[in-house]
């Protein structure tokens, strides 16, 4: 009976002791809060605040050991819980500040990088622009040089042409003057008419196979005119001759027509037609060989026979 009573007493004491060792909810929360805070960044970022939480928890634990059910124990545990949470919140704040600082540094670094890249891009663009400008300048210079060369060449060509033209004009002028002088001289050279003699006038030319006088024949004709004018009493027989090219009959007629053409020219200039008679001899009286050009030219002639 005694042993049963002792056992009951022991059991009750154990129950009482187990009830007394059950921590209040505030202390449980405080332990968990501190465990969470100490395992996070608070230990590194806010060690002082975490230490305060640890001290508060230690006070709560001691109070729990001394007087588990007192309001002091609950309040101390409550305060320890809040301090642990505060340490965790401060750690979060510190982490946020660190992140802000890091982000601001990155922002500045990024801005620096952008400025650097912009400067490099600008420098590259400027180099490209300079090269392009240089190329454009070279091209423009080449174009201007080409234009200048073309202009110079054109001016030179014009100058040469002008010079050539001037020389040609001078030459023509000189030739014309010389010819005119020669013509005048030739024209002024008097043909001497002697009665019973025949004067051969070479250089009186006609169009091929025609009786049309060429312009260069006039010089000779003027001489004939002057001779006729100088000897107003003289009568002449104008005789035409041809080479042997063509038929006899046609040459006969052609020589007559050419003699008539000469007489007509003289009449137009003022010589009396009655002083002139025309005859055509054709190819019958050659003075040279008809086998050569020169000979045939000699044979094509006009003769003035002075009566």
């Amino acid at each position, binding site marked *: 009976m005694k042993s049963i009573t002792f056992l009951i007493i022991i059991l009750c004491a154990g129950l009482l002791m187990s009830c007394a060792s059950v921590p209040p909810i505030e202390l449980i929360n405080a332990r968990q809060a501190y465990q969470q805070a100490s395992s996070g960044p608070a230990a590194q970022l806010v060690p002082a605040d975490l230490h305060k939480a640890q001290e508060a928890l230690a006070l709560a634990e001691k109070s729990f050991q001394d007087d588990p059910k007192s309001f002091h124990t609950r309040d101390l545990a*409550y305060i320890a819980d809040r301090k642990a949470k505060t340490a965790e919140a401060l750690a*979060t704040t510190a982490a946020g500040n660190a992140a802000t600082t890091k982000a601001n540094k990155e922002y500045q670094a*990024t801005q620096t990088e952008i400025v650097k890249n912009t400067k490099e891009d600008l420098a590259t663009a400027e180099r490209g622009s300079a090269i392009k400008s240089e190329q454009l300048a070279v091209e423009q210079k080449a174009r201007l040089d080409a234009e200048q060369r073309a202009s110079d060449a054109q001016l030179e060509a014009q100058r040469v042409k002008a010079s050539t033209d001037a020389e040609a004009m001078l030459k023509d002028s000189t030739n014309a003057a010389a010819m005119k002088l020669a013509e005048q001289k030739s024209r002024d050279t008097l043909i001497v008419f002697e009665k019973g003699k025949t004067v051969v006038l070479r250089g009186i030319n006609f169009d091929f196979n025609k009786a049309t006088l060429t312009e260069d024949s006039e010089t000779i004709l003027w001489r004939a005119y002057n001779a006729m004018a100088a000897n107003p009493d003289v009568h002449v027989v104008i005789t035409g001759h041809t080479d042997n090219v063509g038929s006899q009959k046609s040459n006969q007629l052609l020589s007559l027509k050419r003699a008539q053409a000469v007489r007509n020219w003289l009449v137009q200039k003022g010589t009396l037609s009655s002083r002139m008679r025309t005859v055509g001899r054709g190819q019958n009286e050659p003075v040279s060989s008809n086998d050569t050009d020169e000979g045939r030219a000699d044979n094509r002639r006009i003769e003035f026979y002075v009566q």
Partner: protein
Amino acid sequence: MRHLNMILPAGIVLLTAVLAGCGSTQVINKDASMSAISAAEEAGASKVPSASLYLQLAKEELENAKGLVSKGDKDQAESMLLRAQADAELAIALSHGDADKTEAAQAIERVRQLRQDNQIPQKGISQ
């Protein structure tokens, strides 16, 4: 009469001591708790959801402490004030943490936007 003359001052002193003793039980230091609550309000704790709860608790605990003082329970009142101070300080920390977290997020976003606008590859940015 002579005893009366001796007893009267002693009674006055005793009464004064009793009154003083009763008065001292009513005087507790609420300044720390009230200052912490004011600081939490200034930090904008009422606008931060996670902090507003602890601010409210601190205020309630302050009122409880006043009630305990009026009941003459000085020890529990002081303990309650410590609770109020702890809650108010937690509200302050959470308020600052929220603001700083927002500021950090904004700073990181500025960096990300700057890199995106300038076509610069993003680095590993973490809060």
